Protein backbone atom coordinates (compact mmCIF):
# COMPACT_ATOMS: atom_id res chain seq x y z
CA UNK A 1 0.00 0.00 0.00
CA UNK A 2 1.14 3.56 -0.63
CA UNK A 3 4.08 5.15 1.16
CA UNK A 4 4.60 8.87 1.36
CA UNK A 5 7.55 11.10 1.98
CA UNK A 6 6.30 13.81 4.28
CA UNK A 7 7.86 16.94 5.65
CA UNK A 8 6.73 17.80 9.15
CA UNK A 9 7.91 20.25 11.78
CA UNK A 10 7.54 18.95 15.33
CA UNK A 11 8.32 21.28 18.23
CA UNK A 12 10.22 23.58 15.86
CA UNK A 13 12.36 20.74 14.49
CA UNK A 14 11.95 19.75 10.87
CA UNK A 15 11.70 16.09 9.86
CA UNK A 16 11.48 14.47 6.48
CA UNK A 17 10.31 10.90 6.71
CA UNK A 18 8.67 8.10 4.81
CA UNK A 19 5.40 6.83 6.26
CA UNK A 20 2.84 4.27 5.13
CA UNK A 21 -0.57 5.82 4.35
CA UNK A 22 -2.16 4.15 7.36
CA UNK A 23 0.27 5.63 9.90
CA UNK A 24 -1.63 7.61 12.53
CA UNK A 25 -0.18 10.96 13.51
CA UNK A 26 -0.21 9.73 17.14
CA UNK A 27 1.98 6.75 16.15
CA UNK A 28 4.33 8.86 14.08
CA UNK A 29 4.94 11.02 17.15
CA UNK A 30 5.25 8.14 19.61
CA UNK A 31 6.83 5.33 17.61
CA UNK A 32 8.86 7.13 14.93
CA UNK A 33 9.90 10.29 16.80
CA UNK A 34 9.86 8.73 20.30
CA UNK A 35 7.80 11.63 21.64
CA UNK A 36 5.84 9.51 24.07
CA UNK A 37 4.35 12.45 25.98
CA UNK A 38 1.38 12.31 23.59
CA UNK A 39 -0.79 9.47 24.84
CA UNK A 40 -3.18 7.06 23.21
CA UNK A 41 -6.06 6.53 25.60
CA UNK A 42 -9.50 5.47 24.44
CA UNK A 43 -8.63 4.61 20.81
CA UNK A 44 -12.10 5.87 19.84
CA UNK A 45 -11.54 9.61 19.51
CA UNK A 46 -13.28 10.31 22.80
CA UNK A 47 -10.69 10.99 25.50
CA UNK A 48 -8.41 13.64 24.00
CA UNK A 49 -5.22 12.24 25.58
CA UNK A 50 -3.64 12.30 22.10
CA UNK A 51 -4.35 16.03 21.56
CA UNK A 52 -1.61 18.05 19.87
CA UNK A 53 -1.50 21.39 18.07
CA UNK A 54 -1.47 21.25 14.28
CA UNK A 55 -0.59 24.67 12.83
CA UNK A 56 -1.59 26.06 16.23
CA UNK A 57 -4.98 24.35 16.35
CA UNK A 58 -5.95 21.59 18.74
CA UNK A 59 -6.54 18.21 17.02
CA UNK A 60 -6.77 14.56 18.06
CA UNK A 61 -3.68 12.84 16.69
CA UNK A 62 -5.37 9.42 16.92
CA UNK A 63 -7.98 10.64 14.42
CA UNK A 64 -5.38 12.05 12.02
CA UNK A 65 -3.21 10.30 9.48
CA UNK A 66 0.44 11.30 9.38
CA UNK A 67 0.10 11.99 5.63
CA UNK A 68 -2.60 14.54 6.41
CA UNK A 69 -0.03 16.49 8.43
CA UNK A 70 2.42 16.77 5.51
CA UNK A 71 3.81 20.31 5.46
CA UNK A 72 2.34 21.16 8.87
CA UNK A 73 3.82 22.30 12.17
CA UNK A 74 3.00 20.15 15.19
CA UNK A 75 3.42 21.07 18.85
CA UNK A 76 3.39 18.33 21.47
CA UNK A 77 3.65 18.47 25.25
CA UNK A 78 7.44 18.03 24.91
CA UNK A 79 7.57 21.43 23.23
CA UNK A 80 5.88 23.34 26.05
CA UNK A 81 8.86 23.69 28.41
CA UNK A 82 11.69 26.04 27.58
CA UNK A 83 14.76 23.95 28.41
CA UNK A 84 14.61 23.30 32.13
CA UNK A 85 11.93 25.94 32.65
CA UNK A 86 8.48 24.43 32.71
CA UNK A 87 5.66 26.26 30.97
CA UNK A 88 3.40 28.20 33.38
CA UNK A 89 0.62 25.72 32.58
CA UNK A 90 2.84 22.83 33.66
CA UNK A 91 3.85 24.67 36.85
CA UNK A 92 0.24 25.49 37.70
CA UNK A 93 -1.03 21.96 37.03
CA UNK A 94 1.55 20.79 39.61
CA UNK A 95 0.72 23.51 42.13
CA UNK A 96 -3.07 23.25 41.86
CA UNK A 97 -3.26 19.46 41.76
CA UNK A 98 -4.43 19.50 38.15
CA UNK A 99 -3.27 15.92 37.74
CA UNK A 100 -3.29 12.66 39.62
CA UNK A 101 -2.38 9.64 37.48
CA UNK A 102 -1.17 12.02 34.77
CA UNK A 103 -2.21 10.03 31.72
CA UNK A 104 -4.63 12.64 30.41
CA UNK A 105 -2.38 15.57 31.34
CA UNK A 106 -0.49 16.06 28.05
CA UNK A 107 -3.82 16.35 26.23
CA UNK A 108 -5.19 18.82 28.79
CA UNK A 109 -2.00 20.89 28.65
CA UNK A 110 -2.21 21.17 24.88
CA UNK A 111 -5.94 22.01 24.99
CA UNK A 112 -5.22 24.68 27.60
CA UNK A 113 -2.26 26.01 25.61
CA UNK A 114 -4.49 26.31 22.51
CA UNK A 115 -7.08 28.21 24.56
CA UNK A 116 -4.63 30.65 26.15
CA UNK A 117 -3.01 31.39 22.79
CA UNK A 118 -6.41 32.52 21.48
CA UNK A 119 -7.90 33.90 24.68
CA UNK A 120 -5.29 34.95 27.27
CA UNK A 121 -7.90 35.82 29.89
CA UNK A 122 -10.62 33.15 29.76
CA UNK A 123 -13.59 32.83 32.12
CA UNK A 124 -14.20 29.57 33.94
CA UNK A 125 -16.99 28.75 31.47
CA UNK A 126 -14.66 29.37 28.52
CA UNK A 127 -12.04 27.09 30.08
CA UNK A 128 -14.58 24.33 30.61
CA UNK A 129 -15.78 24.67 27.03
CA UNK A 130 -12.21 24.56 25.67
CA UNK A 131 -11.47 21.39 27.68
CA UNK A 132 -14.70 19.73 26.58
CA UNK A 133 -12.92 17.27 24.27
CA UNK A 134 -10.66 15.90 27.01
CA UNK A 135 -11.54 13.36 29.67
CA UNK A 136 -9.95 12.99 33.13
CA UNK A 137 -11.05 10.13 35.38
CA UNK A 138 -9.10 11.24 38.48
CA UNK A 139 -9.40 14.91 39.29
CA UNK A 140 -13.05 15.73 38.77
CA UNK A 141 -11.87 18.67 36.59
CA UNK A 142 -12.14 21.38 39.28
CA UNK A 143 -8.40 21.55 39.87
CA UNK A 144 -7.66 21.38 36.16
CA UNK A 145 -9.82 24.45 35.62
CA UNK A 146 -8.09 26.19 38.55
CA UNK A 147 -4.71 25.30 37.07
CA UNK A 148 -5.58 26.94 33.77
CA UNK A 149 -7.01 30.01 35.56
CA UNK A 150 -3.85 30.44 37.57
CA UNK A 151 -1.58 29.92 34.56
CA UNK A 152 -3.52 32.58 32.67
CA UNK A 153 -3.09 35.03 35.55
CA UNK A 154 0.61 34.27 35.78
CA UNK A 155 1.18 34.62 32.04
CA UNK A 156 -0.74 37.91 31.98
CA UNK A 157 1.29 39.26 34.92
CA UNK A 158 4.58 38.70 33.09
Amino acid at each position, binding site marked *: *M*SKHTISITVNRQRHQMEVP*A*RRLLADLLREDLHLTGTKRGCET*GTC*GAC*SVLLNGELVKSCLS*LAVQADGCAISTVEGLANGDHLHPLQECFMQCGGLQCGYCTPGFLMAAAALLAQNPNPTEAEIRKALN*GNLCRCTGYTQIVESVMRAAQRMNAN
Partner: protein
Amino acid sequence: MVDFDFLEPQTVAHASQLLAQYGEDARLIAGGTALILALRQRMLQPRQLISLTKIEKLRGITVDNAGTLRIGALTRHSEVGASETVRAHHPVLAGLARVLANPQVRNQGTFGGNLCYADPATDPPGCLLALEASITLESQHGERTLPIADFLVDYFTTAIEQDEILVAINVPASKANSNALYTRHLRTAAEHRPLVNFTSIVECEGPLCIDARIVTAASTITPVRCTQAESLLRGKTITPELVDAAAQLVETQISPISDSRGTDDYRRHIAGVVAQRNLRKAFGLENA
Protein backbone atom coordinates in the same frame (compact mmCIF):
# COMPACT_ATOMS: atom_id res chain seq x y z
CA MET B 1 -6.64 -0.52 10.41
CA VAL B 2 -6.32 -2.34 7.09
CA ASP B 3 -3.73 -1.01 4.61
CA PHE B 4 -4.82 1.42 1.95
CA ASP B 5 -3.47 3.77 -0.70
CA PHE B 6 -3.74 7.50 -0.06
CA LEU B 7 -4.47 9.47 -3.22
CA GLU B 8 -4.50 13.25 -3.50
CA PRO B 9 -6.25 14.47 -6.66
CA GLN B 10 -6.15 18.22 -7.32
CA THR B 11 -9.42 18.56 -9.20
CA VAL B 12 -12.99 17.39 -8.66
CA ALA B 13 -12.92 15.72 -12.10
CA HIS B 14 -9.86 13.67 -11.16
CA ALA B 15 -11.31 12.69 -7.79
CA SER B 16 -14.49 11.61 -9.57
CA GLN B 17 -12.49 9.56 -12.07
CA LEU B 18 -10.69 7.79 -9.22
CA LEU B 19 -14.02 7.05 -7.52
CA ALA B 20 -15.37 5.57 -10.75
CA GLN B 21 -12.19 3.56 -11.28
CA TYR B 22 -12.01 2.01 -7.80
CA GLY B 23 -15.74 1.75 -7.11
CA GLU B 24 -16.72 0.39 -3.72
CA ASP B 25 -13.06 -0.09 -2.73
CA ALA B 26 -12.57 3.66 -2.49
CA ARG B 27 -13.64 6.21 0.11
CA LEU B 28 -13.29 9.98 0.14
CA ILE B 29 -11.52 11.54 3.09
CA ALA B 30 -11.91 15.20 4.12
CA GLY B 31 -11.17 15.97 7.79
CA GLY B 32 -11.26 12.28 8.61
CA THR B 33 -12.58 12.44 12.18
CA ALA B 34 -15.47 10.08 11.46
CA LEU B 35 -13.81 8.05 8.73
CA ILE B 36 -10.59 7.24 10.60
CA LEU B 37 -12.62 6.00 13.54
CA ALA B 38 -14.66 3.79 11.19
CA LEU B 39 -11.41 2.48 9.64
CA ARG B 40 -9.88 1.78 13.03
CA GLN B 41 -12.97 -0.12 14.12
CA ARG B 42 -12.95 -1.94 10.75
CA MET B 43 -16.50 -0.90 10.03
CA LEU B 44 -15.08 0.25 6.69
CA GLN B 45 -12.14 -1.34 4.91
CA PRO B 46 -11.42 0.68 1.78
CA ARG B 47 -8.37 -0.08 -0.37
CA GLN B 48 -8.06 3.51 -1.54
CA LEU B 49 -8.56 6.72 0.39
CA ILE B 50 -9.08 9.67 -1.92
CA SER B 51 -8.16 12.85 -0.07
CA LEU B 52 -10.00 16.02 -1.05
CA THR B 53 -7.78 18.50 0.75
CA LYS B 54 -5.80 19.55 -2.35
CA ILE B 55 -8.94 20.56 -4.26
CA GLU B 56 -9.18 24.33 -3.83
CA LYS B 57 -12.67 24.49 -5.34
CA LEU B 58 -14.06 22.83 -2.21
CA ARG B 59 -12.92 25.68 0.06
CA GLY B 60 -14.23 29.11 0.88
CA ILE B 61 -17.35 30.84 2.14
CA THR B 62 -19.04 33.27 -0.27
CA VAL B 63 -22.37 35.03 -0.83
CA ASP B 64 -23.84 35.48 -4.32
CA ASN B 65 -25.98 38.35 -5.64
CA ALA B 66 -29.19 36.65 -4.52
CA GLY B 67 -27.81 36.50 -0.99
CA THR B 68 -27.27 32.73 -1.06
CA LEU B 69 -24.49 31.67 1.28
CA ARG B 70 -22.14 29.10 -0.24
CA ILE B 71 -20.06 27.04 2.19
CA GLY B 72 -17.35 25.00 0.49
CA ALA B 73 -17.52 21.34 1.48
CA LEU B 74 -14.04 21.35 3.04
CA THR B 75 -14.86 24.22 5.40
CA ARG B 76 -14.17 23.04 8.93
CA HIS B 77 -16.72 23.54 11.69
CA SER B 78 -14.40 25.98 13.48
CA GLU B 79 -14.18 28.05 10.28
CA VAL B 80 -17.99 28.10 9.90
CA GLY B 81 -18.28 29.21 13.54
CA ALA B 82 -15.68 31.96 13.20
CA SER B 83 -16.73 33.23 9.76
CA GLU B 84 -17.95 36.84 9.79
CA THR B 85 -19.93 36.06 6.63
CA VAL B 86 -21.78 33.13 8.21
CA ARG B 87 -22.34 35.11 11.41
CA ALA B 88 -23.81 38.00 9.43
CA HIS B 89 -26.08 35.94 7.15
CA HIS B 90 -27.02 32.91 9.23
CA PRO B 91 -25.93 33.39 12.85
CA VAL B 92 -27.87 30.26 13.81
CA LEU B 93 -25.48 28.18 11.69
CA ALA B 94 -22.37 29.85 13.11
CA GLY B 95 -23.67 29.32 16.64
CA LEU B 96 -24.31 25.66 15.97
CA ALA B 97 -20.82 25.17 14.52
CA ARG B 98 -19.29 26.66 17.68
CA VAL B 99 -20.84 23.99 19.92
CA LEU B 100 -20.72 20.96 17.62
CA ALA B 101 -18.86 17.94 19.05
CA ASN B 102 -15.69 19.25 20.78
CA PRO B 103 -12.88 21.69 19.97
CA GLN B 104 -10.65 19.05 18.36
CA VAL B 105 -13.38 17.76 16.05
CA ARG B 106 -14.40 21.32 15.16
CA ASN B 107 -10.79 22.00 14.10
CA GLN B 108 -10.57 18.82 12.02
CA GLY B 109 -14.04 17.89 10.78
CA THR B 110 -15.66 19.51 7.75
CA PHE B 111 -19.22 20.61 7.04
CA GLY B 112 -19.30 18.55 3.84
CA GLY B 113 -17.92 15.46 5.54
CA ASN B 114 -20.48 15.75 8.31
CA LEU B 115 -23.34 15.73 5.77
CA CYS B 116 -21.90 12.88 3.68
CA TYR B 117 -21.42 10.66 6.71
CA ALA B 118 -25.15 11.14 7.46
CA ASP B 119 -24.93 10.14 11.10
CA PRO B 120 -28.27 11.28 12.54
CA ALA B 121 -26.79 12.22 15.93
CA THR B 122 -25.21 15.48 14.85
CA ASP B 123 -26.08 19.17 14.64
CA PRO B 124 -25.99 20.59 11.09
CA PRO B 125 -28.48 18.54 8.99
CA GLY B 126 -31.68 19.50 10.83
CA CYS B 127 -30.80 23.17 10.94
CA LEU B 128 -29.86 23.13 7.24
CA LEU B 129 -33.22 21.53 6.41
CA ALA B 130 -35.05 24.29 8.28
CA LEU B 131 -32.96 26.86 6.38
CA GLU B 132 -34.00 25.11 3.13
CA ALA B 133 -30.38 24.58 2.15
CA SER B 134 -29.31 22.72 -0.97
CA ILE B 135 -26.29 20.58 -1.75
CA THR B 136 -24.15 20.86 -4.88
CA LEU B 137 -22.72 17.56 -6.09
CA GLU B 138 -20.23 17.24 -8.91
CA SER B 139 -18.76 14.37 -10.90
CA GLN B 140 -16.69 14.06 -14.05
CA HIS B 141 -20.02 14.19 -15.93
CA GLY B 142 -21.30 17.44 -14.48
CA GLU B 143 -22.95 19.13 -11.57
CA ARG B 144 -26.34 18.89 -9.89
CA THR B 145 -27.97 20.59 -6.94
CA LEU B 146 -30.35 18.81 -4.58
CA PRO B 147 -32.50 20.09 -1.74
CA ILE B 148 -31.01 18.76 1.47
CA ALA B 149 -34.25 16.85 2.10
CA ASP B 150 -33.52 14.78 -1.03
CA PHE B 151 -29.83 14.40 -0.18
CA LEU B 152 -30.37 12.84 3.25
CA VAL B 153 -31.99 9.51 2.41
CA ASP B 154 -31.61 7.18 5.37
CA TYR B 155 -29.48 6.18 8.36
CA PHE B 156 -25.86 6.86 7.24
CA THR B 157 -27.13 7.01 3.63
CA THR B 158 -27.24 9.93 1.20
CA ALA B 159 -28.28 10.34 -2.44
CA ILE B 160 -24.66 10.80 -3.51
CA GLU B 161 -23.69 8.67 -6.53
CA GLN B 162 -20.58 6.51 -6.58
CA ASP B 163 -18.49 9.02 -8.56
CA GLU B 164 -19.89 12.21 -7.04
CA ILE B 165 -18.30 14.67 -4.64
CA LEU B 166 -20.14 17.12 -2.42
CA VAL B 167 -18.80 20.49 -3.52
CA ALA B 168 -20.76 23.03 -1.52
CA ILE B 169 -23.68 23.69 0.79
CA ASN B 170 -25.96 26.53 -0.36
CA VAL B 171 -28.13 28.37 2.14
CA PRO B 172 -30.67 30.82 0.70
CA ALA B 173 -31.02 34.27 2.23
CA SER B 174 -33.34 34.43 5.19
CA LYS B 175 -36.25 36.87 5.23
CA ALA B 176 -35.39 40.10 7.01
CA ASN B 177 -38.13 39.70 9.61
CA SER B 178 -37.60 35.99 10.32
CA ASN B 179 -35.82 34.62 13.35
CA ALA B 180 -33.96 31.31 13.55
CA LEU B 181 -33.31 29.39 16.77
CA TYR B 182 -31.45 26.10 17.26
CA THR B 183 -31.85 24.08 20.48
CA ARG B 184 -30.37 20.71 21.32
CA HIS B 185 -30.44 18.21 24.13
CA LEU B 186 -27.35 16.36 25.34
CA ARG B 187 -27.91 13.52 27.82
CA THR B 188 -24.95 14.78 29.85
CA ALA B 189 -22.88 17.93 29.50
CA ALA B 190 -19.91 15.78 28.49
CA GLU B 191 -21.73 14.12 25.60
CA HIS B 192 -20.79 15.41 22.19
CA ARG B 193 -23.68 14.14 20.11
CA PRO B 194 -27.19 15.58 20.49
CA LEU B 195 -29.90 13.14 21.48
CA VAL B 196 -32.48 15.49 19.95
CA ASN B 197 -32.22 18.85 18.29
CA PHE B 198 -34.77 21.31 17.06
CA THR B 199 -34.66 24.29 14.73
CA SER B 200 -37.37 26.90 14.30
CA ILE B 201 -37.47 29.74 11.81
CA VAL B 202 -40.42 31.95 12.61
CA GLU B 203 -41.81 35.11 11.08
CA CYS B 204 -44.11 37.18 13.25
CA GLU B 205 -46.08 40.43 13.08
CA GLY B 206 -46.72 41.36 16.66
CA PRO B 207 -48.43 38.35 18.27
CA LEU B 208 -49.37 36.89 14.88
CA CYS B 209 -47.30 34.04 13.42
CA ILE B 210 -47.00 34.69 9.68
CA ASP B 211 -44.87 31.64 8.92
CA ALA B 212 -42.94 28.92 10.74
CA ARG B 213 -40.48 26.32 9.51
CA ILE B 214 -39.64 23.78 12.15
CA VAL B 215 -37.43 20.69 12.09
CA THR B 216 -36.63 18.04 14.65
CA ALA B 217 -33.54 15.88 14.14
CA ALA B 218 -30.96 13.55 15.72
CA SER B 219 -33.57 11.14 17.14
CA THR B 220 -34.98 10.25 13.74
CA ILE B 221 -33.03 8.55 10.94
CA THR B 222 -33.14 11.78 8.96
CA PRO B 223 -34.32 15.26 10.00
CA VAL B 224 -38.11 15.69 10.01
CA ARG B 225 -39.89 18.83 8.87
CA CYS B 226 -42.80 19.12 11.31
CA THR B 227 -45.46 20.17 8.82
CA GLN B 228 -48.46 19.54 11.10
CA ALA B 229 -47.06 21.79 13.79
CA GLU B 230 -46.15 24.40 11.17
CA SER B 231 -49.75 24.43 9.88
CA LEU B 232 -51.09 24.76 13.39
CA LEU B 233 -48.93 27.84 14.06
CA ARG B 234 -49.20 29.59 10.70
CA GLY B 235 -51.58 32.56 10.65
CA LYS B 236 -52.46 32.23 14.34
CA THR B 237 -52.06 34.49 17.33
CA ILE B 238 -49.37 32.91 19.47
CA THR B 239 -50.36 31.78 22.95
CA PRO B 240 -48.58 29.41 25.34
CA GLU B 241 -51.36 26.87 24.74
CA LEU B 242 -50.88 26.99 20.96
CA VAL B 243 -47.12 26.53 21.31
CA ASP B 244 -47.63 23.57 23.63
CA ALA B 245 -50.06 22.02 21.17
CA ALA B 246 -47.49 22.46 18.37
CA ALA B 247 -44.83 20.77 20.49
CA GLN B 248 -47.27 17.94 21.15
CA LEU B 249 -47.72 17.50 17.39
CA VAL B 250 -43.93 17.24 16.94
CA GLU B 251 -43.92 14.45 19.50
CA THR B 252 -46.66 12.48 17.76
CA GLN B 253 -45.47 13.08 14.19
CA ILE B 254 -42.02 11.47 14.53
CA SER B 255 -40.90 7.84 14.61
CA PRO B 256 -37.74 7.97 16.72
CA ILE B 257 -34.91 5.46 16.57
CA SER B 258 -34.30 3.23 19.58
CA ASP B 259 -30.78 2.34 20.62
CA SER B 260 -28.34 2.25 23.53
CA ARG B 261 -28.42 6.04 23.80
CA GLY B 262 -32.19 6.19 24.23
CA THR B 263 -35.38 4.24 23.63
CA ASP B 264 -37.94 5.50 21.14
CA ASP B 265 -40.36 6.48 23.93
CA TYR B 266 -37.69 8.48 25.76
CA ARG B 267 -36.53 10.18 22.56
CA ARG B 268 -40.13 11.03 21.62
CA HIS B 269 -40.71 12.65 25.01
CA ILE B 270 -37.47 14.64 24.85
CA ALA B 271 -38.26 15.73 21.28
CA GLY B 272 -41.50 17.23 22.60
CA VAL B 273 -39.74 18.94 25.50
CA VAL B 274 -37.02 20.41 23.28
CA ALA B 275 -39.66 21.56 20.77
CA GLN B 276 -41.66 23.25 23.51
CA ARG B 277 -38.63 25.03 24.98
CA ASN B 278 -37.43 26.15 21.58
CA LEU B 279 -40.81 27.43 20.39
CA ARG B 280 -41.58 29.27 23.62
CA LYS B 281 -38.29 31.10 23.33
CA ALA B 282 -38.65 31.64 19.57
CA PHE B 283 -42.04 33.32 20.09
CA GLY B 284 -40.75 35.36 23.00
CA LEU B 285 -42.90 33.59 25.61
CA GLU B 286 -39.98 32.84 27.91
CA ASN B 287 -36.22 32.51 28.00
CA ALA B 288 -36.11 28.72 27.91
